[in-house]
């Protein structure tokens, strides 16, 4: 396999999903997960603005003006889909009906905290449905570049930005490794091909728990 970078992240994140799961994919990188589903795994994508069964992006001529995804972009609904209001949508999210939410991070830390909705003074878009998704989904999977573009760590001892949710992250998937928050700390469970433990430690601010056996991301 020659998977690298964000493709590798998407490939590995997709392996957390089981056949029949209902999944919510965040805007941006997480949408790539749909392209890397394992054979035989069919998932149902929830769009938190009000439906299950996100289909392909329609051409401008085919677009139904009443169908957008949670990013506000033209979308479609697959046969077998279902529409509902916002209370029902977030009822599904908080109620344990969404098996996994996969989303990006500005920062994530060794206490399972996630910050991804605001940079005070710079970017104040609002949390949208993010706080509900992270607090409510059964499994919270963070997809992120291991470091910022400037090479600074994003996986911290303690988030400095306002949190999206506290202690709710289950897995962090980067181009270097998979980390699992086990309720006490971050366990380094898998490495990307060719990546060493020391390399991950060097590029991570958070204290990592290093188990005797570490798997491979592919």
């Amino acid at each position: 396999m020659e998977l690298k970078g964000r493709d590798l992240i998407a490939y590995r994140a997709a392996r957390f999903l089981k056949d029949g799961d209902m999944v919510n994919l965040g805007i941006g990188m997480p949408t790539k997960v749909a392209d890397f589903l394992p054979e035989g795994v069919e998932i149902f994508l929830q769009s938190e603005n009000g439906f299950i069964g996100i289909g392909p992006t329609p051409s401008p001529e085919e677009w139904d003006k009443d169908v957008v995804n949670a990013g506000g972009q033209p979308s479609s609904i697959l046969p077998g889909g279902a529409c509902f209001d916002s209370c029902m949508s977030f009822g599904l999210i908080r109620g344990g009906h969404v098996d996994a939410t996969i989303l990006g991070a500005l920062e994530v830390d060794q206490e399972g905290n996630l910050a991804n909705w605001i940079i005070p003074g710079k970017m104040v878009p609002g949390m949208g449905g993010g706080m509900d998704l992270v607090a409510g989904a059964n499994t919270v999977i963070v997809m992120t570049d291991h470091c910022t573009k400037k090479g600074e760590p994003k996986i911290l001892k303690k988030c400095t930005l306002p949190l999206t949710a506290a202690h709710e992250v289950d897995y962090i998937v980067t181009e270097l490794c998979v980390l699992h928050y086990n309720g006490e700390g971050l366990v380094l469970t898998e490495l990307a091909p060719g990546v060493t433990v020391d390399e991950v430690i060097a590029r991570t601010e958070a204290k990592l728990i290093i188990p005797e056996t570490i798997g491979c991301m592919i």
Partner: protein
Amino acid sequence: MAKSKVVSPSEAAKLLRDGMTVMMGGFTNVGSANKFVLEMVKSGLKDITLISNDAGNDKFDGIGTLICQKRVKKLIASHAGLNPQVAVQMNAGELEVELVPQGTLAERIRCGGTGLGGVLTPTGIGTVVAEGKQIINVNGKDYLLETPLRADVAVIKAWKADEFGNLVYRRAARNFNPMMAMAADIVIAEVEEVVPVGEIDPDMVMTPGVCVDYVVKM
């Protein structure tokens, strides 16, 4: 979308175990799984805690059959006056009965299915229903804190299903079914008609298939 959830009545009945908490939809047997309930009785099921709006009656098959056949050790309902067996068994110490106002029962089940920790309702303030409950004042008005209800199994009744379990209810037969379909670990739907996936318009789906585990056509 996905494999068919349609199973035989006897297969579905095997999912129920003695001592389980079971929700059953319906209002005076309208919108109750009046046929599947006979499979439940036939399977020998006993000692269940039953959560339903009422206790059916002692004349027709339905929820009342479980009471008349002494399969219920505890009943949580809003009304039981149409089934005289409830009073008989209650007075004999064979059946525990917890009465909950109908609107509160609906909200408590909704909380159980949507991940809410409770709701504040004015219903029951100043009555026996308030006993032992927390009273919380919001904007100068007192409310009772009512907490979530969940079940091991919900046995619901819909008019039409597709093979993925998307459900449509009819008329006054909707009642508690949509909330119960979200508030149990296993959800079994008795339906009158099963159609292929894609035949139900997404806007007409009243319970999304992701909430339903088994569909029984009877």
